[in-house]
C-alpha cells in the first residue's frame, strides 16, 4: 500500500510496520482503505476491533522515534502509548474530514459510547487533529472525566490544552491534577501557562488542605511562584521551614522565580536551599519524584 497522506500518518504507519506481524499489518491496511471511504460504521468497527487484532503491547519508542514524533508535531510525546492506541489513532487520522461539524459529531458518538481504552486513545488523538478549535470543548470534557486514565490522556504528555485552553479551562486542569494526585511533571506548558487567578486558587486550596490536616502537594507551589502576592509569600515562608523536604525544595524553587521584591530575602533565610538551587541539585522534576515516592 502506498501512503499518500501527510508525514504524521506516514510516521505512524512506519512504527506499526516495525511492530506487527504480516497478518495484522494486512488487516490494518485493509481497514485503513475502508476507513478512508468516510463510512463511519466502518470506522467504529475497525476502531473497536484494534486490540484483538494487534494486541496491547507497549510501544516502547526508540530515542530516534521520539525525536521524529517531536519533529512532526511539536510537544507530542507518545512514549507511554501502547500499540492498540497507535493503530486507533491511525484509523481516526485516516477518516476523511469534509465538513467539520459532521466530523465532530462522528467523534462525539465515539466518545459517548467509548469504553475506557477507547476513551484514552481518543483523547490522545486530539492534538493530532486538524481544526483544533473544534475540539476544545471535548478536551475540557475530558478534564471533567472521573476515570483517571482518561483525565491523564488530556492532561499529560498532550500539547493540546496548553495551546487551546482558556485560562479558566487551564486552571481547572491544574487544580484537578493536584486534587487527584496527578504530577505536573508531564503536563505540557505548565510553567508557560501560569497566571495570577490560578496562583490565588492554589493558595486557597493549600489553606483548605492545611485546615483539614491533609498534606499539601509540593508541586502546587510551582504555579504559585511566578505570580506570588503577599498572601502567597506568607505560605511560601511557612513551607520553606516545614518538615517536608519536598515542600522545602518546592518553596525554595517557587521563591527563586518570584519577581516579588520580598522573595529574595525570604529565600535568603534558607541559604542551603538557595545554594542547592544554584548548583542545580534539585528541580521540579526531583520534587515530583520525591512526592511520587511517598
Amino acid at each position, binding site marked *: 500500500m502506498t501512503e499518500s497522506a501527510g508525514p504524521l500518518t506516514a510516521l505512524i504507519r512506519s512504527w506499526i510496520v516495525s511492530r506487527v506481524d504480516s497478518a495484522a499489518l494486512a488487516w490494518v491496511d485493509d481497514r485503513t482503505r475502508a476507513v478512508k471511504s468516510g463510512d463511519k460504521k466502518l470506522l467504529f*468497527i475497525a476502531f473497536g*476491533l484494534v*486490540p484483538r487484532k494487534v494486541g496491547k503491547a507497549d510501544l516502547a519508542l526508540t530515542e530516534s522515534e521520539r525525536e521524529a514524533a517531536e519533529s512532526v508535531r511539536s510537544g507530542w510525546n507518545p512514549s*507511554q502509548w501502547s500499540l492498540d492506541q497507535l493503530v486507533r489513532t491511525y484509523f481516526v487520522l485516516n477518516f476523511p474530514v469534509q465538513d467539520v461539524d459532521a466530523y465532530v459529531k462522528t467523534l462525539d458518538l465515539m466518545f*459517548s459510547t467509548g*469504553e*475506557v481504552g477507547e476513551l484514552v486513545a481518543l483523547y490522545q488523538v486530539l492534538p493530532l487533529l486538524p481544526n483544533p478549535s473544534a475540539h476544545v470543548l471535548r478536551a475540557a470534557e475530558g478534564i471533567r472525566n472521573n476515570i483517571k486514565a482518561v483525565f491523564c490522556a488530556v492532561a499529560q504528555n498532550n500539547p493540546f490544552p496548553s495551546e487551546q485552553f482558556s485560562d479558566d479551562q487551564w486552571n481547572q486542569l491544574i487544580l484537578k491534577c493536584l486534587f487527584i494526585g496527578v504530577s505536573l511533571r508531564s503536563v505540557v506548558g505548565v510553567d508557560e501557562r501560569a497566571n495570577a487567578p490560578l496562583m490565588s486558587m492554589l493558595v486557597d486550596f493549600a489553606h483548605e488542605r492545611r485546615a483539614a490536616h491533609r498534606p499539601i502537594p509540593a508541586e502546587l507551589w510551582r504555579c504559585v511562584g511566578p505570580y506570588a502576592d503577599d498572601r502567597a509569600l506568607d505560605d511560601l515562608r511557612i513551607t520553606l521551614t516545614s518538615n517536608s523536604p519536598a515542600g522545602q525544595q518546592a518553596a525554595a524553587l517557587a521563591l527563586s522565580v518570584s519577581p516579588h521584591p520580598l522573595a529574595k530575602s525570604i529565600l535568603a533565610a534558607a541559604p542551603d536551599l538557595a545554594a542547592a538551587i544554584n548548583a542545580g541539585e534539585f528541580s521540579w522534576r526531583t520534587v515530583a519524584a520525591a512526592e511520587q515516592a511517598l
Partner: protein
Amino acid sequence: MLYIDPHIHMVSRTTDDYEALVASGVKAIIEPAFWQGQPRTQIGSYQDYFASLVGWERFRAAQFGIRHYCTMGLNSKEANNEALAEQVMDLLPLFLTKEGVVAVGEIGYDDQTPTEDKFFRLQLELAKEVDLPVLIHTPHRNKKQGTYRSMDVIEEHGIPPHMVVIDHNNEETYREVLDRGYWCAFTIYPGTKMGNERMVDILKVAGPERVIVDSSADWGKSDVLAVPKTAKLAAERGVPREHIELVCYKNALKAYSQSGQFTESDWLNPPAIDQRNLFEGNSVLRGGQSPQIDSANEANIIR
C-alpha cells in the same frame, strides 16, 4: 479459592459491596445489561447505560482490584416498548464489538409476548453475526415453559448449546437444560430464585459439569457474596473442592472465554497498558485493595 461472579449488576451496588467481593476472593465479574427497575423511555438512556458498563463501572471495579466485563442486550421486559426497542437494536452493534463484552444478554422472555419473541430472535441472529455467546434470562412466571421455549427458539436459529448460558434455573428446569447440552446457571438470590442450601443439594445430584453459580445481585434485596458463600457451604457439606472450583470459577471462565474477551491472564497478569488505564499501576492488583477493617475504638472515625 478464586471466584468469578458471572452475573451481577454492580451499577446498583456500593463501594462496600466491592470491598466485600475483593475480601472474599472474587477476581472477575460479568455485568449483564438489564432492566434498571425504572423503565427507560429514551434511547439516550440506553446509550449512556451501555457506555457506563464499558466505561465508568469497568474503571470503578478496577479501583478495587476486580476485573469487570459485561454483556450487551435488550432485556425482555423493556423489549415490549417496541418503538424504543427498534432504536436499541440499531445501537447494539456499536457496543457488541467492544473490548470486554463477553456475550449478548441477558435476553429471553419475561411475559412471553409476541414482541418479546421478535426481539429475542433478532438478538440471537445478532449474536451469530458477531460470534458471541448468549446469556439467557429465564422468566419468573411460567418458568418451566419459558425455559423450554427459549431453548427451542435457540435451536431453531441454529445456535449450538455450548455457546449459550441458560440462567436462573431451578429444580424443575435444570435437568432438561443440562441434557440438551447448555451451560446451566443458578442464581443464588434470597426469596425469589434459589437459596444456597438447595443449590448444594442440586450439586450433589447433578455434578459440576456445565453448572455455573452466580448472584444476580442488583437493586433488589440480594447478596453480592452469593458465589463465595455457596462455595463455602458446599465445602462444609462435603462437595469435592474440584467440583466447587468448576461451578464457582472454571465453568464461567470456559463458557465466556468463547467470546475471546475473557481470559484468566486479564486479572492474574494484565498487560501493562491495562494496569495503567484501569489499575493505575499494579499495586492494587497485588493481593487486592486491603479491605477496610475498622478497629473497635476507631469505628466511628472517618478520615
